[in-house]
């Protein structure tokens, strides 16, 4: 069944690919070849703290060309989660958990085309995710335009700690299209479109919804949430970078999202990159995000089993968030010691404010059910990393 579906999706993707690549070969003008991504190694420490959650750990990304046409990459990412979030505090016990992710990729350059293949595996005690991705990008029109197509298939295994017999699956299909365009000698923009379909056990096996229950003092009780078994979404975005009259860059991003759970979302952001001499690069950004709630979301259902599908995940509720971030990169003075590579050190800090419009703070036990304060929280994200270029 799964194999049949995968073949069907692969056939569709092959048609997309042939359509793009063959047409672009006909239209290609001349000159310059595409380039492989640059060789570099990054070692990063990340930390997220907010809303009762602390998540931190290391990540490593290494990329190396093995010939003029082939570049290999390896990525490792680890999370250590310490969770006492509002969901955990109100319906379960605080927990700690580790997650490891590995990704291996190969890029193959052929003329003006780059083909990419990658496999990733993410593993935690109750969830395993695998993804196989294939992409092709093509430079055309004097290399002013790059068209990229991607397909990814993911297969996840969902477990539940304490219940060894709990064994569910998810299949994920992703199609993406990207167009990067040089507009002027100072201005570049990109358009991206991505459709994703998920099939399987999509809700969180630990999370619950609450419903009005006059038989208990709090006025409400909990029951497990139930999601539909399919979800399809489409997102489209525009990103742009403009080189200012002095050496600095102004960036812009906007994305619109829509899915068949009736969630619409958008985000807009601007960023500014400002080098100081040859040693420092400073960055700053602001990002605003807004989403509507899923059609089967409710903060408080009127009674038990009120609907076929029920969710009270704040991630599916109506909310907005605003992010303000700054960063600094310093070029390491390695020239005195070696000519084989150069390096830099970077630190980035983001502050995020989340404001929920229909998710109430159920920790307020003295309030009437459904009349608690609306929930909000803030988070701080820090990334510190060193990069080596060779």
């Amino acid at each position, binding site marked *: 069944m799964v194999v049949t579906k995968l073949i069907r999706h692969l056939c*569709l993707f092959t*048609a*997309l690919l042939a*359509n793009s690549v063959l047409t672009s070969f006909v*239209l290609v003008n001349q000159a310059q070849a*595409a*380039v492989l991504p*640059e060789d570099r190694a*990054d070692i*990063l420490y990340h930390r*997220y703290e907010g809303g009762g959650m602390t998540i931190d750990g290391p990540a490593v*990304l290494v990329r190396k060309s093995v010939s003029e046409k082939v570049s290999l990459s390896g*990525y490792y*990412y680890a999370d250590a989660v310490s969770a006492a979030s509002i969901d955990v505090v109100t319906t379960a016990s605080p927990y700690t958990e580790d997650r490891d992710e590995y990704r291996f990729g190969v890029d193959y350059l052929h003329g003006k085309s*780059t083909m990419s293949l990658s496999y990733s595996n993410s593993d935690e005690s109750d969830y395993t995710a695998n993804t196989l991705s294939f992409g092709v*990008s*093509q430079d055309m029109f004097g*290399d*002013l335009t*790059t*068209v*990229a*197509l991607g397909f990814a298939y993911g297969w996840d295994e969902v477990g539940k700690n304490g219940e060894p017999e709990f064994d569910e699956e998810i299949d994920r299909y992703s*199609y993406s*299209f*990207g*167009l*990067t365009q*040089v507009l002027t*000698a*100072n201005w*570049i923009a*990109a358009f*991206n479109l991505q459709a*994703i*379909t998920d099939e399987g056990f999509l809700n969180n096996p630990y999370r619950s919804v609450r419903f009005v229950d006059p038989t208990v003092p709090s006025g409400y009780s909990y029951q497990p949430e139930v999601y539909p078994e399919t979800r*399809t979404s*489409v*997102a489209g*975005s525009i990103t742009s970078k403009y*080189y200012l009259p002095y*050496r*600095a*860059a102004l*960036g812009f991003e906007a994305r619109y*999202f829509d899915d068949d759970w009736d*969630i619409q*979302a958008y*985000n807009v952001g601007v960023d500014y*990159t400002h080098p100081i001499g040859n040693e420092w*690069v400073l960055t700053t950004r602001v990002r605003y*995000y807004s*989403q509507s709630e*899923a059609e089967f979301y409710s903060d408080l259902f009127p009674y038990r089993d009120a609907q076929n599908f029920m969710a009270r995940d704040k*991630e599916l509720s109506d909310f907005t968030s605003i992010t303000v971030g700054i960063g600094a990169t310093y070029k390491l003075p390695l020239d005195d010691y070696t000519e084989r590579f150069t390096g830099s050190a970077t630190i*980035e800090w983001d502050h995020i404010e989340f404001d929920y419009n229909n998710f109430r703070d159920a920790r307020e036990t003295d309030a009437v059910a459904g009349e608690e304060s609306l929930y909000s929280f803030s988070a701080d*994200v820090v*990334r510190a*990393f060193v*990069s080596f270029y060779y």
Partner: protein
Amino acid sequence: MGSARAILILVTLLLASGCSSIKPWVKPYERQKLADPIMSFDMHPIAAKHDAHVFESREAARGADGSGGGGCGCN
């Protein structure tokens, strides 16, 4: 599947729209500013991966957050 078909139609329209007569209006030797690392959509890929993960885990929206996967061929 409907979404995938929409992409297929869009790609066909874009690529079949008679662009072969277009001459590149930014010459290779005019691209030194575009090739400056500060103009990259993805200056630090490892940080971008973590950044995307932070938002994806907390938002319902997903996808189309890449930079086109290509670059401008200006290196």
